[in-house]
């Protein structure tokens, strides 16, 4: 019979192979699902993994969708490594969009003339601050009141959504917009400049790549990053070494809030160019999956972000080209995460085939 034996040391090879195995298993199950639905499995899978990458336009769309995912995931990686379970990245994303949108709207309605190279950074920083402010509520609740950060951050997501609704239906509504819930379109100076002509890809993508490198340095080459990780892995040892748990908490939440807020700002000032009730399609939650599939590692998050972006776009294509149900994407995402966690056990355990011997009777 099969038995799980603890390994003396966690296996390095498995910690890289695990996401690949999980992905392979997900693909397998996906193929089976396609057959069950009566669709050609190869065509179905190609919708997700090939079609999105077929031409330049497709590549830019994948990169565009991956940008907010990776940004959020970078911040969440820091959080989870510090054992701070921020589930509210979606809310921080929305507040980032609101803050950035607010600044952009002010510039637009007041007719402030300023060059793009000055205005756009202001908008993005505003977004970061918005996300950080929202995350700080969670930090305060945990720091001063010991409230569980999972629940507080999550409840704040629902609050953030209603706040966006309120603003977009009310004080920020475009007066020339026939009472529809959307703000004025932001003036060009506040928008993100394009990276690839004839596409929607903006410099946010480049910023994201720089941040991936930056986070790698922070997490693996900086003292603060080291403290955060130790605090997450061995809180008692960290305390003994004098690493402040409180600093770790605030750093983790502010960093992840800022990143999510930046992502939100990029959505609002990038492809959307205005605020509507539909700024986010669940980026904050998908980013959690990206984070885990990326093994909480900045470079891993980059690859995982691209992968999940392909899954999401593929789901859309599968729907319009093959008639696959839209909900399939959600199943794949959840399945991927589940299988990943299951495969992770192989890092700490070995599978052994043990033959059962009848116990020898002594004497």
């Amino acid at each position, binding site marked *: 019979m099969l038995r799980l034996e603890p390994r003396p040391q966690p296996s390095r090879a498995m910690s*890289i192979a695990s996401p690949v195995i999980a992905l392979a298993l997900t693909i397998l199950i996906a193929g089976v699902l396609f057959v069950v639905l009566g669709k050609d499995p190869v065509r179905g899978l190609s919708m997700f*993994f*090939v079609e999105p990458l077929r031409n330049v336009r497709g590549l830019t*769309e994948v990169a565009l969708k991956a940008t907010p995912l990776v940004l959020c995931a970078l911040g969440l990686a820091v959080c989870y490594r510090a054992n701070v379970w921020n589930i509210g990245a979606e809310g921080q994303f929305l507040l980032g969009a609101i803050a950035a949108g607010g600044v952009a709207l002010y510039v637009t309605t007041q007719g402030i003339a300023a060059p793009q190279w000055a205005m756009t950074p202001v908008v993005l920083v505003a977004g970061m601050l918005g996300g950080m402010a929202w995350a700080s509520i969670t930090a305060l609740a945990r720091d001063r009141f010991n409230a569980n950060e999972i629940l507080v951050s999550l409840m704040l997501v629902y609050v953030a959504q209603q706040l966006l609704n309120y603003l977009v239906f009310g004080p920020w509504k475009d007066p020339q917009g026939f009472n*529809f*819930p959307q703000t004025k379109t932001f003036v060009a100076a506040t928008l993100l400049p394009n990276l690839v002509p004839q596409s929607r890809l903006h410099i946010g993508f480049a910023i994201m790549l720089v941040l991936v490198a930056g986070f790698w340095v922070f997490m693996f080459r900086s003292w603060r990053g080291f403290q955060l990780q130790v605090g997450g892995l061995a809180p008692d040892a960290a305390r003994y070494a004098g690493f402040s748990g409180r600093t770790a908490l605030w750093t983790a939440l502010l960093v992840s809030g800022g990143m999510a807020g930046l992502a939100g700002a990029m959505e609002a000032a990038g492809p959307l160019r205005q605020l509507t009730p539909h700024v986010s399609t669940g980026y904050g939650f998908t980013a959690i999956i990206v984070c885990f599939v990326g093994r909480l590692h900045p470079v891993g998050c980059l690859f995982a972000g691209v992968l999940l972006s392909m899954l999401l776009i593929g789901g859309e294509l599968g729907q*319009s080209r093959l008639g696959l149900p839209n909900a399939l994407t959600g199943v794949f995402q959840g399945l991927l995460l589940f299988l990943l966690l299951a495969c992770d056990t192989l890092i700490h355990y070995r599978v052994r085939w043990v033959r059962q011997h009848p116990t020898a009777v002594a004497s």
Partner: protein
Amino acid sequence: MFSPAKRSWLKVALVAAVAALAACGKEEAPPKQEAKAPEAKAAAPAEPFKAAWMYVGPVGDAGWTYAHDLARKSVEGEFGGKVKTTFVEKVPEGADAERVIRDLAAQGNKIIFATSFGFMEPMLKVASEFPDVKFEHATGYKTAPNMRIYDAKFYEDAYLAGVIAGSMSRTGTLGFVASFPIPEVLRNINAFTLGAQSVNPKIKTRVVWVNSWFDPPKESEAAQSLINGGADVLLQNTDSTAVLQTAEKNGKFAFGWDSDMSAVAPKAHLGSAIVDWSNYYKKAVKEAMDGTWKTERTVWGVKEGQNDLAKIADAVPEEGKKKVAAVKDAMKAGAFEVFTGPIVDNAGKERLPKDAKADQDWKDKVDFYVQGVEGQIPSAK
């Protein structure tokens, strides 16, 4: 944790996986093309005209999207093999919509219908890139040389429902389960109230906002709270049957919205406000096919057969039924305008002078409640 060597293994693994699948995908493409070519030679007639629909909700919602899809099917029925239709459902109204529209256009669809106002900006952007494709946007207000708008007169249905509600209500209080405070919904609330007041001038309407188009538990709760507050006839602007079911549970009355919901609640159902887009869709596709398509704004109602209040219950008193029939006939003759002055808002300000008939602009900008509707519009200035 990730040494450069291990990281490159990961890269290799992922790239290999993608490449393998890419190879699979590409291999498949050529055979299909070969198969198509001989087929085309044998068939000889022109490629079918491709038309696509984009929905914001699921096709099975028995409401807004369902009505559009029924009409899409009737287009297929009308043109037979000459028109090939596709649809994409549950498209979110944010940045993703643009990608879907672009993909539909790139796939060879020559006319694309977007059935929610949130698709307006994305559609405008894509329209500028595909000058040969015709774009149609429902319930919006922006146009382009190859993009036009269409809408229906839901407020006519709401008015007719109001007439029935006015004749059925014993408490004199009506309830409205509303989705979002946009002009269309405000028009419907006002039309409902005006219709009821034409039968019983003392009618009051209470409104509860659920901030969603389709959320059955919330709609149930909203309906229940309206009933708790004394309303005995309800109308909704949301898409599920929850309001009707709650009304039935409490022994009150309600209407179906966007589709025939009479089977859902036999005792509570007073009528269903339905919309039939098939005439418009057939016209649009035909115009696109024979080149007579032009940018305009089309708003059809009861007169053109696009809106109707159907399956009126037997329980409605004769008086009420007669009045509804009379109003319907007047609408069909084009002689009845729901928003005819004097119309005063519930703060006392006159919005339309006596005998004046509201024009499209007035109707587009409705941002107030008429007298008799209680409360204030959420986030109103």
